[in-house]
């Protein structure tokens, strides 16, 4: 009888502790990845010597940094995000539109948003050209936009 209740107690402790799925370890909503290339030699990565990035009417994410790529979040409550990219004194505006789909991941991670039918327009001050590598943003393995300058 005593041994049995000890067994029950051990089982109780063992099972109440096995909550390994309580920490979110999966990848969640992806950020937009932009890489900068040389406009004269489109296969060569070219850093922007002093880059400042901010979303419309928000604080800057990067301030006067030398970067060859940036990862920036998209607005999860609206179907478009406007980003301002400043190189030295010139400012260009990226207008990103998309459809949002929320995809179930797991108990601890909940849902992530993936972006489909992505379209981008840009002003051309310091940015010479850009290409959108995919119309779907669902992971962070590759750059989604290449900017030539």
């Amino acid at each position, binding site marked *: 009888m005593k041994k049995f209740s000890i067994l029950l107690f051990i089982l109780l402790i063992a099972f109440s502790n096995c909550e390994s799925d309580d920490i979110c370890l999966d990848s969640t909503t992806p950020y937009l990845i932009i890489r900068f290339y040389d406009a004269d030699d489109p296969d060569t990565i070219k850093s922007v010597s002093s880059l400042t990035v901010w979303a419309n009417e928000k604080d800057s994410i990067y301030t006067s940094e030398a970067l060859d790529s940036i990862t920036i979040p998209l607005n999860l*409550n609206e179907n478009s995000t406007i980003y301002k990219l400043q190189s030295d004194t010139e400012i260009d505006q990226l207008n990103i539109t998309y459809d949002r789909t929320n995809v179930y991941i797991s108990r601890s991670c909940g*849902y*992530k*948003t993936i972006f489909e039918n992505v379209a981008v327009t840009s002003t051309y001050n310091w940015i010479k050209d850009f290409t959108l590598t995919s119309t779907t943003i669902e992971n962070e393995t590759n750059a989604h936009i290449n900017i030539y300058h």
Partner: protein
Amino acid sequence: MRISIFIISLFVSIVGFAQQKTDTLKLKQTYGLRVGADISKPITSFIDSDKKGFEITGDLRFSKNHYAAAELGYEDVITTEDFITFTTSGSYIKLGVNYNAYRNWAGMNNEIFFGGRYAFSFFSQTLNNYTPNSYGTYFEADLIEPNTEYKDLSAHWLEFVAGMKVETFKNIYFGAQINIKKLITTKEPDNFENLYIPGFNKVFSNDLGIGFNYSISYLIPIIKKTK
């Protein structure tokens, strides 16, 4: 003197007779249907308003140490995780056998049992709300309240049961048991998952579950058999 000896002998024989009678009674074992209810569920409902439910238990002794056992229940439970809140409601049935491993002294009817169950649940999940998970705080996602109801979901699983039953008053039993569960199949909702199943409780990542049951049951005596 003679009279007093007679009286004493009579008394002894009466006592002896009475003893004899109880001895034969002790050898009789009651077979019958035992019905009860899980008393932990209404207590849990009272403490935690997110958890409502009841469970009826029953078992039928069909041999010296074997009992056909069943549990029948209903649950309506709200689960809150870090990024999601959902409601599960549905019924379940569990059928199986218990084996009593406890050797009672004559006249006692207690049990330490082990058993197995096949269980089936039929339920619905309602995704009450969620916040899309995004790292960083530059853009914060609003809470989305879809209240989507996923109906006609089901699950089958197996349980290993261990527990005890104690006859506290004549034919009234207090029981406690632990159930370790393993899912066999589930019908999952689209773009969501059965994270809680009535009768199974929380579904752990490896399809395992655990449950406890504290019951009061009454034995309806049907036949008394001599051992």
